């Protein structure tokens, strides 16, 4: 297990006073301190790790957030910000002496401005909530992580969330204009605004994806885009991973920019088909879902070209959706991939490395070999256009050895990603899960420089501490003996 810092005894001893002070700052029912009601906050989307916090505070306003942070900074209390708690990397895992700051009550859409193509929303608005609010007018918010029904925009900003349509529309960082940002000192700062590319240092870019290390975001000004006239998907199945990879290269090389280009391997196809009955070819080793946009004639033309390209690689099957409904059916299996794997195996770890797409056949072959040697099944689904892999490692949480093997297997995959020129995480974040692997990707001076930048915002290391940066060599922490996080 990954070690956590030892709780500060003086903070634990002052629990009653701290809770009372928080109640004064956030009146009403905004503070939770009873053990039973803290339970739901003990974990997030990485449920293998659990640790109840000291207290939970649920502010309603930016001013309350500022007041709580100012108080915690003065008293040396650690703060773990939380949106919907859907992080797959343990980004919202509490610490025993920390206050979890949940932003879900700040869920107002404050403004939509079609002329300037932006929306101002509070941090607790869900990702899909933004799109739902503007879709009747033909607009949408582009990043679409799989958890978009539940995950909140504040968390999306903190993790720089991606989704299946990044190849064309980019990730969270590419779709923001401004933030209301609260420092650990309790200062409320406007970052960016309603215009593009503010002058000065790119604080918007640095804060996005900073995993709660630098401050708390309470309000976000997002770009909203007008949707295309339509979109349609096709699927192409091949008898080898290598050939499917070549087809991906050929599509990208042809000058077409598909709006989505998803890749599934055999175990994943089987799991999804059993779950969604989407008509996926069960004899295939690899399958692509390719989506294009435009009006019907444009879709036909692009899908026709892609079909021609795929035909050069002897596909086992090609299926072009004729209608929007058929498109949805093709996507249904992919969108349900995580749930589908969950039916085969109650527990799985979802990995998130990125690789140069040319390395795909080699990496999938190596993952297959590792699967054999660890004795654990793995299903691969990934965003082929951008090389972001999501191997799902299946294990049994009731068997400690199985969990440890899964963790080691995952770490080996991520090391392999770095080895071939990729990175540890494409969109889920480092969190607690990949913290101690950071030394694989970065040198000690590189890590020190990032730690120093964190400290430039948060000198006492109170904001989401123990995540992202390895504890070793960090004077801000006493390291607690292993296994306390379990």
């Amino acid at each position, binding site marked *: 297990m990954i070690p956590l810092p030892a709780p500060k005894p003086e903070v634990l001893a002052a629990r009653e006073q701290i809770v009372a002070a928080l109640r004064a700052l956030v009146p009403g029912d905004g503070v939770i301190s009873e053990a039973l009601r803290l339970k739901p906050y003990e974990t997030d989307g990485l449920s293998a790790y659990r640790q109840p916090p000291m207290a939970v505070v649920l502010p309603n306003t930016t001013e309350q957030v500022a007041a709580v942070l100012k108080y915690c900074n003065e008293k040396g209390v650690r703060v773990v910000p939380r949106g919907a708690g859907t992080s797959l990397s343990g980004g919202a895992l509490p610490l025993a002496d920390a206050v979890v700051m949940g932003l879900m009550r700040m869920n107002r859409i404050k403004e939509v401005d079609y002329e300037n193509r932006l929306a101002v929303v509070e941090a607790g608005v869900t990702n899909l909530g933004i799109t739902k609010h503007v879709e009747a007018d*033909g607009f949408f918010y582009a990043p679409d992580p799989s958890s978009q029904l539940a995950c909140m925009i504040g968390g999306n900003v903190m993790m*720089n969330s991606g989704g299946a349509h990044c190849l064309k529309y980019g990730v969270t960082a590419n779709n923001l204009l401004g933030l209301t940002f609260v420092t650990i000192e309790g200062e409320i700062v406007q970052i960016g605004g309603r215009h593009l*590319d503010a002058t000065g240092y790119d604080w918007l870019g*640095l804060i996005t994806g900073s995993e709660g290390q630098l401050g708390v975001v309470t309000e976000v000004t997002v770009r909203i885009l007008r949707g295309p006239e339509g979109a349609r998907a096709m699927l192409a199945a091949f008898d080898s991973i290598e050939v499917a990879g070549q087809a991906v290269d050929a599509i990208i090389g042809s*000058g077409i920019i598909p709006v989505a280009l998803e890749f599934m391997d055999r175990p994943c196809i089987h799991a999804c088909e059993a779950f969604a009955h989407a008509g996926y070819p069960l004899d295939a080793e690899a399958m692509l879902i390719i989506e294009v946009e435009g009006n019907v004639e444009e879709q036909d033309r692009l899908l026709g070209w892609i079909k021609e390209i795929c035909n050069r690689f002897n596909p086992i099957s090609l299926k072009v959706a004729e209608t929007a409904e058929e498109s949805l059916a093709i996507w249904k299996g992919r969108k349900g991939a995580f749930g589908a794997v969950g039916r085969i195996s109650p527990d799985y770890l979802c990995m998130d490395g990125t690789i140069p797409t040319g390395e795909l056949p080699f990496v999938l072959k190596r993952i297959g070999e590792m699967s054999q040697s660890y004795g654990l099944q793995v299903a691969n689904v990934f965003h082929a256009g951008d090389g972001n892999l999501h191997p799902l490692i299946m294990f049994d949480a009731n068997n400690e050895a199985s969990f440890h093997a899964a963790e080691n297997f995952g770490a080996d995959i991520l090391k392999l990603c770095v080895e071939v020129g990729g990175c540890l995480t494409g969109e889920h974040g480092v969190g607690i899960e990949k913290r101690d692997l950071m030394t694989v990707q970065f040198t000690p001076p590189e890590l020190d*420089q*990032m730690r120093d*930048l964190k400290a430039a915002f948060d000198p006492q290391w109170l904001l989401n501490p123990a995540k992202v940066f390895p504890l070793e060599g960090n004077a801000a922490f006493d390291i607690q003996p292993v296994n306390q996080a379990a």
Partner: protein
Amino acid sequence: MNCSTIIPKTEAAVASTVQSASSLGISLAIEGNGSKRGLLRPMRAGRTISLRGLSGITLYHPTELIISAQAGTPLPEIEAALAEHGQHLIAEPPALTAMFGAERPATIGGIVATNLSGPRRIAWGAMRDHVMGIRAVNGKGEVFRSGGRVLKNVTGLDLCKLLTGSHGTLGIITEVTLKVLPAPQATGTVSIRVASLEQGVAALSAGLGSPFSVTGAALIPEDGGGIAHLRIEDFEQSVAYRCGKLREALARFGEATVQADSAALWQGIREATTLGATAEEAIWRLSVQPSAAPAVVAALRAAGGSKFLLDWGGGLIWVAAVASAEAHAAVVAAALAAQGSYTLFRAPEDLRASVPVMPDEPRALTAIARRVKAVMDPCGLLNPGRMRAGQ
């Protein structure tokens, strides 16, 4: 000006140059080919370090949509290499060699350090959105990397974005890795003569709010009104179809013409030569929300008249006017009244030295900026005072 220029040939030599500058307490002005030396505040640095000795494309995988190049690689060299494979730089960065009267081409390091983006920014993102990886030397002379050579990466703090647009004040960029995309097969431009700037910006907003993927939206003011230009880039049949649809959708703004051959038009907008600034005039670049643009232009006209060029749907305003403190004050007031930001882009040295060339930051950010600068460049050696006093 600086007395001597150091031209290291390797990243290690850049690092050792900074180390010795650091031990001697000598500050460094950082440039590629020096094409944007006249940008922002003038510096008094002990030495100039030029990255032009670090030149060349180090990795290009067209099917992975990734290119890496050393910082001193000339922009035209990169554009030519991409064109050979039918690809392009997504943000369409301007070189601005004409604006600054530069003799040598802009380098990719300089483009990234200044975060310059052209017309396509409105649709496809800024330069900063496509910097996937960076190598740099900090003010202590340490080499560091951020990002990598893949398209999706959230591992650690995003120093690619922190360095992009930091004008060399936080680190000396030695190599960049950029996302690239297929260049369009065809381009079409829908142009509409509008009776007022309000009408013009409304037409651009309507185009950008249409489902036809407008990738350029500029407004060239003329007496009383102007001409709105909307660009579509895609496969040939799509361009023809969407230009037609766009023309219909914008009919309420006026009679539209469609032109296929519009490369020169967009090149002029990209490089801001369309602004028509004389060599003596100062140039400002403002970023505001598009709907605020007509009021900004009106305010500046009332303050004495200037030349204007609007891009990014109206959100980017280029202004040319007499190079005076009064003209600058008018620009500052108009930008801030619109809650936007401004950059004094080109002006004689004495004006750039005597006025803020970009807005101040809120107090809390100023304090953070000072601490960030202290982490990256503790002795304040890199491009001292380039952006603001002490930054």
